[in-house]
């Protein structure tokens, strides 16, 4: 499984990488911001993209919006992560077509659960339906 993690914190990226390499034997790729993700996306067929909402310049919601408007990434499962507990971010993200939402801090089990949920719920994305657990 190929996973792209888009997150400006190197510690967060390292946590996700270590967790998913260990728990899912996944091949994890990293982007430290939205621009880098835009460069990496066309180069690989990622099974899941994990995106932090709060990033400078191109934020997670903008990146998600771009992905859903591009044919190549319209159906790629996306897990949104954020420190905020705001219902507004969650609603906007889900309306934009995120497959699930994960709030920091989270552990390995929650991460894996979110990943599997996103993979199993591709069909509901992009139509505004609540794909959250």
């Amino acid at each position: 499984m190929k996973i792209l993690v888009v997150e400006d914190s190197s510690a967060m990226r390292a946590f996700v990488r270590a967790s998913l390499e260990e728990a899912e034997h996944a091949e994890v790729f990293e982007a430290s911001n939205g621009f880098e993700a835009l460069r990496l996306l066309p180069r690989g067929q990622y099974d899941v993209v994990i995106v932090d909402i709060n990033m400078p310049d191109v934020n997670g919601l903008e990146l998600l919006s771009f992905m859903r408007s591009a044919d190549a990434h319209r159906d790629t499962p996306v897990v949104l992560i954020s420190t905020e507990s705001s219902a507004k971010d969650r609603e906007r993200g889900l309306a934009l077509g995120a497959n699930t939402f994960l709030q920091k801090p989270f552990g390995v089990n929650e991460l894996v659960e979110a990943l599997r949920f996103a993979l199993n719920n591709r069909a509901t994305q992009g139509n505004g339906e609540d794909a959250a657990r």
Partner: protein
Amino acid sequence: MSEGDAREEFLAEAQEIIEGLSRDLLLLDQADKEGRDDPDLINEVFRGVHTLKGIAGMFGYHQLGAVTHALEDLLDDLRLGRVSLTQNVLDVLFEGVENFQRLLTEDPDGPPVDLEAYAAAIDLVQAPAPLARETLEDYARKIGRPANSLYNTLVRLRTALRHCIQARLRQEGGAA
């Protein structure tokens, strides 16, 4: 990458953020002494504290997470103009960064971090601004209630909230 590698990455990033915060606070102090406002710098400090809060929670540094959370609220008040930047506020911010450093390195020979006293210090500089009091008085007049009674209700609520935070800090301190 192993869990140990990720932890090392956390320690390096947290240290980098703390050093950035120290630098930014010195610049903020200098700007304040020269009578200049620097909202961009306040935003930068907010962002650093916000990131530190996020990663501290992920790596089990709960006390560090609690202090960053309290300071983030103060910085949010500063950003939104609910609290003005004064020397007292700057002192609280500098003390916060010192606490971050101690909580990160957990130096057994260093002085212990008095989280309760620090929470009280934050609370002190977050007291209602004169503008808030004035608005409250306007509202009290409108509804025909004594302003002091409304004001006291707010203060009681804040005190109760502070007690909750202190109890939580004590709980987390005991669990660490």
